[in-house]
């Protein structure tokens, strides 16, 4: 078993029976479900909207070369420096190079999952820079030295009491556990950082080819300030974030808001197309956009699963996933958790190491049904299972072969089958004595579940009886 698989199993075993964790997650998800459904109902045709969104992303992803070239050309025309990174290391080096060049000390960041993906914070801190996450949830998990729990709600797993204790310990400022008071503590602490910061780093939700602008969706205003106050601005964005036209945002911004947080539109949807332009009052003197591949082209090469590049990171599939809700966000051990993370991580980080995620699913299809861009998530999990065990990559083990060698003749001979069933009934009774313990042969199952008994009478026996 790969190290990530062992980690997943251990954490899942610990978190799933934790009723306190379950309570916190169910409360948060319950609130989300109510508002999400209210907002969906306001659409004249939500299923139609999903079709249009899927179509738009299909066009964007399947003509990625054209759109990406157009995006770069247009944003460069307004004085933006565009950088290209094939992998995480190149992206980190590009950004560290800019920081060195600008002699930066304090860096303020707004939420960017791509920066988690390339472990940017570690690299910057290691190089001696002070790095501050400004999204409240990200700030909280940064203070806890933890990765985000969820794509959209990074601190979803914490209670106000835990956050109060954290602020008291780290900031020495926590008047009460009232969410408003706690938010104001963070606001005050981060205002100072905004005024000090030399460089602001953001992610992006969309990159518009036709106009050469990026679009950032947020509620707090932290990305607005990150893009307004420091003298240098850097945006790190995956190459798959392309949308062809500006008007595509008219559909995608509300859909992202509805599925992400259950809002009609998120508080700030802001488009950036360059550094401060002539005649403008403020804004950065320099603007850098780092376009990141990091195995996205590997996923692109898989035509069957290419639609997964259309993901808008709304987190809706995490929210409905029975596995996510039980094992929690940290158990995945990946930057992108939940169904979408289980689909794309094997492509981004290696199929054999991460194939266990394909089984972190009940295949119920709730993810596929909710996805606003109609990614065929649960079928992709099946395809990953198939690909992971394809003859060239994985061969059945000796025990698997032996099991089938025995099973085949037994299943093929009615008399032998009948005898085996009879013996099994006796075996079941004996097994019952050691149910669930270490010497129970069905322990892998019975440790956490009941084993249903074999029927007292087989169908053949019943049929014979009726015939008398």
């Amino acid at each position, binding site marked *: 078993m790969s190290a990530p698989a062992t980690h997943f199993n251990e954490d899942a075993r610990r978190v799933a029976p934790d009723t306190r964790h379950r309570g916190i997650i169910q409360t948060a998800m319950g609130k989300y479900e109510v508002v999400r459904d209210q907002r969906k109902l306001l659409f004249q045709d939500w299923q139609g909207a999903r079709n249009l969104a899927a179509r738009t992303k299909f066009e964007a992803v399947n003509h990625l*070369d054209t759109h990406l070239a157009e995006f770069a050309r247009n944003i460069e025309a307004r004085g933006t420096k565009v950088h290209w990174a094939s992998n995480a290391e190149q992206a980190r080096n590009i950004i560290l190079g800019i920081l060195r060049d600008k002699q930066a000390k304090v860096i303020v960041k707004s939420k960017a999952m791509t920066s988690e993906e390339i472990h940017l914070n570690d690299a910057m801190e290691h190089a001696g820079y002070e790095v501050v996450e400004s999204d*409240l949830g990200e700030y909280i998990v940064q203070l806890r030295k933890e990765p985000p729990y969820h794509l959209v709600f990074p601190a979803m797993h914490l209670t106000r009491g835990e956050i109060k204790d954290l602020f008291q310990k780290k900031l020495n400022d926590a008047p009460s556990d009232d969410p408003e008071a706690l938010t104001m503590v963070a606001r005050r602490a981060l205002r100072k950082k905004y005024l000090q910061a030399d460089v602001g780093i953001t992610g992006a939700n969309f990159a518009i080819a036709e106009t050469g602008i990026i679009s950032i969706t947020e509620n707090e205003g*932290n990305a607005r300030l990150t893009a*307004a106050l420091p003298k240098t601005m850097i945006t790190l964005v995956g190459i798959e974030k392309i949308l062809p036209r500006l008007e595509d945002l008219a559909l995608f911004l509300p859909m992202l808001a509805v599925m992400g947080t259950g*809002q009609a539109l998120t508080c700030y949807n802001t488009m950036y197309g360059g550094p401060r332009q002539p005649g*403008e009052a403020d804004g950065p003197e320099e603007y850098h956009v780092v376009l990141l591949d990091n195995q996205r082209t590997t996923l692109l090469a898989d035509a069957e699963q290419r639609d997964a590049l259309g993901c808008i990171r709304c987190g809706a599939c995490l929210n409905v996933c029975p596995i996510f809700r039980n094992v929690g966000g940290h158990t995945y051990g990946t930057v992108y958790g939940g169904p979408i993370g289980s689909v794309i991580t094997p492509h981004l980080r290696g199929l054999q190491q991460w194939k266990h995620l394909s089984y972190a699913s009940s295949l119920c299809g709730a993810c596929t049904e909710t996805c606003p861009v109609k990614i065929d998530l649960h079928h992709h999990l099946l395809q990953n299972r198939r690909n992971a065990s394809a003859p060239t990559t994985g061969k059945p083990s000796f025990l698997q072969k032996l099991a089938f060698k025995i099973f085949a003749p037994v299943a093929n001979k009615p008399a032998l089958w009948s005898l085996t069933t009879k013996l099994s009934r006796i075996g079941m009774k004996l097994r019952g004595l050691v149910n669930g313990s270490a010497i129970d042969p069905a322990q892998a199952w019975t440790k956490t579940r009941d084993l249903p008994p074999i029927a007292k009478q087989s169908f053949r026996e019943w049929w014979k009886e009726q015939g008398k």
Partner: protein
Amino acid sequence: MSERENIFNRIREALTVEAHSHNGTGLPTTAEHRGVMPPVGASEDERFALFAKNASDLKATFKLVKDAGELTAELRALRDTEKWQRVATHKSPLAQTHAIGLGLPTLVTDDGYDKHDMEQCDVGISVCDALIAQTGTVLVTSRNSGGRALSCLPPHHVVIARREQLVADLPAAFAMVKKIYSANYPSMISFITGPSRTGDIERILVLGAHGPKKLTIFCL
């Protein structure tokens, strides 16, 4: 070979295998967008009513004022109840005149300013590019609304709009942005939908996370 070329080569190589769409192909038209999105009223009155309802749901304040005199009175009342000491604004006849009329020290952003000074301001007063009925949104740009920070750094953002700036929906707003700016886009275009908020602590709504706690929209 540059990294740019490497990336483009991998993309082109990947796209030699064709994918199939289950949802049709071709980019949707604006009419198709409008056909699925939340409806907006047909008449101007209905759209104003929708904007007002959305603003109130978002905990923003929206007021129709009949003339400059009423606007001055409203602003003075706000100044007195909130005890404003310093005001930030920008060079625009509508915003600057009313800001100066308050008789307080006033920061004007256009020719550059010290960010520490703006942080001390109690209110940012700006104009906007449009109001969007469908979502209760205020559309601002760095070119027309005094830069990037004015509508976000002070704890109260006051928007002065004109009645004819109301557009029906998001497709109309993007069409307008394209029409006005396609030759030369401003470096920032922001769709502001209510005052700054967060739900990051137990998904409980708190206003004024980083941006303004209050958003007031006056419409002449």
